[in-house]
């Protein structure tokens, strides 16, 4: 294991920003620290960078204890949220700033700047002032600058948040491809779950200073460890229910059979049933079958590419997403049956 975060905690006065964070990351992977604002993800990144000192715990890279090493001696590349390009330097001088500090000569600096600008697909701008670049171009320059010293670890703090939605999606793909090409161990902080799903090998979901789940993006989506993760990653139907027997959850008194149950849950325990909207089937007639709930359509949002149907079943609002081709012929107020397939039901502790 390359990067080891051992029981790290950090508090600012009475605020507990990180509580006993214990993680291990292998080399060459892209890790996303994901969570809502204030969850501690940026604090964790800053602790890894050396810009904050943990209140407790240790940080090791390849066994070497880095906890007390100042930021400028760690040789990690970092892209900041504000990008933090030096306004008094040209693009090229920004990129080779770290090389200059290490005493690399002018000619080698120029060559390395050209190389890096080529790498981020922004050739020929080395002599321009930073102020003349667009948002996307600045982004690329910040990435090039962070990679200039061949860092042992590449850290990015909400790197794409300043870009518009379209450019952001394109940059996510580009950043991921760049990371794979270089094979560099990378940690990205983001609050955007789509960004995490696009780029990450491993997603670390955080909330209130604690790690909620560490898994591959698809695993966090398909088997979230708790209701917070389920709600934060993608759109979810979270239905409260009661465990009854080996494979059944009672929802409003109706039995819903589930394919798998978590261990350590006693019969009669309060649980939360998670069903993703794309797994929910809405049938136009009041069919009474296994895992069916009856309800009434409360809204239909036809987005063209997909159709979102909201159904009220007793106390619950359930969301179903379907394709236009499979859309049942229904209007608001129609009585319908909603099927929650057993294979798609995930039981979470309440």
């Amino acid at each position, binding site marked *: 294991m390359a990067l080891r975060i051992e029981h790290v905690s950090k508090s600012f006065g009475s605020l507990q920003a990180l509580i006993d964070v214990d993680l291990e990351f292998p080399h060459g992977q892209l890790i996303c620290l994901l969570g809502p604002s204030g969850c501690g993800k940026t604090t964790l990144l800053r602790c890894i*960078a050396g*810009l904050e000192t943990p209140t407790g715990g240790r940080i090791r890279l390849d066994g070497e204890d880095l906890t007390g090493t*100042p*930021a*400028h*001696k*760690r*040789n*990690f*590349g*970092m892209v*900041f*949220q*504000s990008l*933090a*390009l*030096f*306004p*008094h*330097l*040209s693009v090229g*001088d920004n990129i080779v*700033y*770290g090389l200059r*500090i*290490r005493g690399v000569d002018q000619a080698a600096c120029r060559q390395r700047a050209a190389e890096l600008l080529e790498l981020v697909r922004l050739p020929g701008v080395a*002599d321009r002032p930073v102020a003349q670049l667009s948002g996307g171009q600045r982004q690329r320059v910040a990435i090039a*600058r*962070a990679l*200039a*010293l061949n860092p042992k670890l590449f850290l990015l703090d909400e790197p794409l948040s300043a870009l518009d939605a379209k450019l952001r999606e394109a940059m996510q793909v580009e950043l991921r491809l760049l990371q794979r090409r270089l094979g560099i161990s990378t940690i990205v902080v983001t609050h955007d779950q789509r960004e995490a799903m696009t780029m990450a090998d491993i997603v670390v979901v955080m909330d209130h200073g604690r790690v909620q789940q560490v898994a591959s993006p698809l695993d966090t989506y398909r088997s979230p460890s708790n209701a917070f993760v389920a709600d934060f990653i993608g759109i979810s139907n979270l239905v409260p229910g009661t465990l009854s027997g080996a494979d059944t959850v009672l929802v409003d008194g109706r039995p819903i059979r589930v394919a798998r149950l978590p261990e350590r849950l006693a019969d009669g325990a309060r649980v939360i049933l998670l069903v993703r909207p794309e797994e929910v089937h809405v049938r136009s007639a009041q069919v009474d079958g296994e895992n069916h709930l009856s309800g009434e359509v409360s809204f239909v949002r036809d987005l063209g590419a997909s159709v979102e149907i909201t159904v009220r079943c007793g106390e619950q609002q359930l969301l179903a997403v379907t394709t236009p081709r499979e859309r049942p012929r229904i209007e608001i107020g129609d009585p319908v049956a909603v099927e929650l397939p057993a294979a798609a039901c995930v039981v979470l502790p309440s």
Partner: protein
Amino acid sequence: MTREVPAPAADDARVPGDFALAPPTSISFREHLWLIYPAVMLVVFFIVPFGIMVAVSFFHRVEGAFYEPAFELANYARFISPFFGRALAFSVWISALAAAIVVAVAFPFTYCLTRMRRAAQVRFLVFILAVLSLSEVIIGFSWSTLLSRTAGVSNLLAFVGLLDQPAAWTPSFGALLVGLCYLGFPYAVLVLYPALSRLDPELPEASRMLGASPLRTFFSVVVPVLRRSIISALILVFVFNLGAFLLPQVLGRPEHWTLSVLITDQAIFQSNIPFAAAMAIFLMVVCLALVALTLAFGQQRRAAP
């Protein structure tokens, strides 16, 4: 200095494309009516007094009386002498030196100040503002006491054993320099504070991540990024020092008297208002020239990569 006023948007219902035909004056006059107020203030409180001073500088002094209207260059001719030349050179030298020392001390101080907790910052700023409210007289005499042989800090140092015996440190060049620095310091902090507190904290952090030590970061990122504010502070403290006429008399020897002291002397004690006016105008012209030079230097450094 004139500020660019944005062109007023056409507010009448003109057809797009025919604006070239419409006379723009009628609207713009009404919209700029408020400018009369600052213009009147500027004329009454600046241009008229300054005009009087310029006029008086050419008047003829009547010995034993006041002056009479005339046009003579004698007042200007008079201070083209080694004595006044030395006084001017000394004024510029000590003002510039004090400005450089003040900014060199105030800049790192303010940088540390902006990195403190909010409450601590407010406490410091209130203290600095309080120092600002002290008059030059009080500051001058306080320093004169502190640096004196009879009651000064040298007694303390002698008591501790760092000095053999108490020493008189005033009047002297050093005492004057200390006084001017003390006077200028709060102004420098107040000019630097807004710029330093707006500095993106990620800029120095980015520098540190690229391998620069905190000290190196300070000189290769913080100082160059805030060069404009540093130049502003330098100019302000310099001009402010140039006008000090009390401290040189309290803390300096006669050879440390600046041009401002001589102007005061001529205006108040010799009743030679025309000569004082001529010197004041000359000092102002020199001062403006130096400021222009400094600004030009700043611009050039910016243009160069």
